């Protein structure tokens, strides 16, 4: 009886197993299955008809999908071209001018292109607590291949500007360049203009020239007078009036005048 019972149990278990394997009971759902790793057979040569062959066997190795880095790229893409040659220094352009000039007077406008002392700075960015450091990119030095010339011009309508034409000066590595103009307003009023700065590059080999505008800064100068009196007349009148007033106001001015009158009378 026991043997018959055991046999029946075994038969029942086998039936259940067979039924489950036929219905896919032991396998996971298809949409949750990770994609099989491609094998060399999957990239085999296609058949004569051009139909690609299927892989001979599919591996079941799990594939790890690595997150793409969100930080700034630290390497240049393979198709990247070299950056254009440039001046390797950071420069500071300073324009100094008097906003107000006395009528009849002249003054100086100065434009300086000097090396900025901040030095080279590698760009950094901080994202979510991580510090990302940008890689220094080597830019070809323009001084090696070209002669660099700084050109400046001051356009100021209604004002006599000397020199009136473009002014040139060679730009050397590490050295500053300064341009001066003398401005003489023709009358009273407000005069507006532009201070231009260009860079001219002359190739050392081919002598080919190219020019770029570097800066165009607006400048505004007002010419003022005092009740119609210009600067030189005011100074002259002020000096003369001070002497006369001092003489009139001195306590011994009367004695001086009397003594002078006596001398004049003796001489006459």
């Amino acid at each position, binding site marked *: 009886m026991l043997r018959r019972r055991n046999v029946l149990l075994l038969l029942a278990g086998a039936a259940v197993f067979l039924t489950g394997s036929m219905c896919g009971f032991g396998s996971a759902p298809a949409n949750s299955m990770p994609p099989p790793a491609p094998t060399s057979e999957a990239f085999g040569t296609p058949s004569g008809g051009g139909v690609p062959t299927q892989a001979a066997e599919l591996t079941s190795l799990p594939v790890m999908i690595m997150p793409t880095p969100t930080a700034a790229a630290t390497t240049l893409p393979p198709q990247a071209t070299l*950056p*254009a*040659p*440039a*001046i*390797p*220094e*950071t*420069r*500071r*352009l*300073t*324009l*100094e*001018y*008097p*906003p*107000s*000039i*006395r009528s009849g007077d002249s*003054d100086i406008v100065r434009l300086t*292109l000097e090396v*900025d002392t901040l030095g080279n700075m590698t760009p950094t960015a901080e994202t979510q607590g991580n510090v990302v450091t940008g890689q220094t990119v080597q*830019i070809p030095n*323009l001084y090696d291949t*070209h002669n660099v010339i700084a050109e400046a011009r001051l356009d100021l309508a209604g004002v006599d500007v000397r020199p009136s034409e473009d002014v040139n000066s060679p730009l050397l590595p590490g050295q500053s360049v300064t341009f001066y103009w003398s401005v003489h307003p023709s009358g009273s009023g407000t005069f507006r203009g532009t201070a231009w700065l260009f*860079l001219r*590059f002359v190739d050392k080999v081919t002598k080919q020239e*190219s020019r*770029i505008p*570097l*800066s165009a*800064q607006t400048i505004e100068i007002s010419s003022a007078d*005092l009740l119609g*009196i210009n*600067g*030189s007349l*005011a*100074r002259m*009148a*002020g*000096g*003369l*009036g*001070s002497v*006369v*007033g*001092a*003489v*009139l*106001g001195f306590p011994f001015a*009367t004695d001086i005048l009397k003594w002078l009158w006596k001398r004049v009378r003796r001489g006459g």
Partner: protein
Amino acid sequence: MRKLRLAVAVIVILLSLALLVWGLWPSVYQRHSIVVPPAEMSLPTPSSFEPILRSGG
């Protein structure tokens, strides 16, 4: 007469000093400074010559 002379002297001196101060006051200069990075001091790219080439210049 003396008081009148002194008053005139004071007025003349004050006006003259005012004219002198205005005529001799030093100019106040305005300063504008900008930083020019190296990228702005580079050779012009060939594409920027296109308008020049089209115009035949």
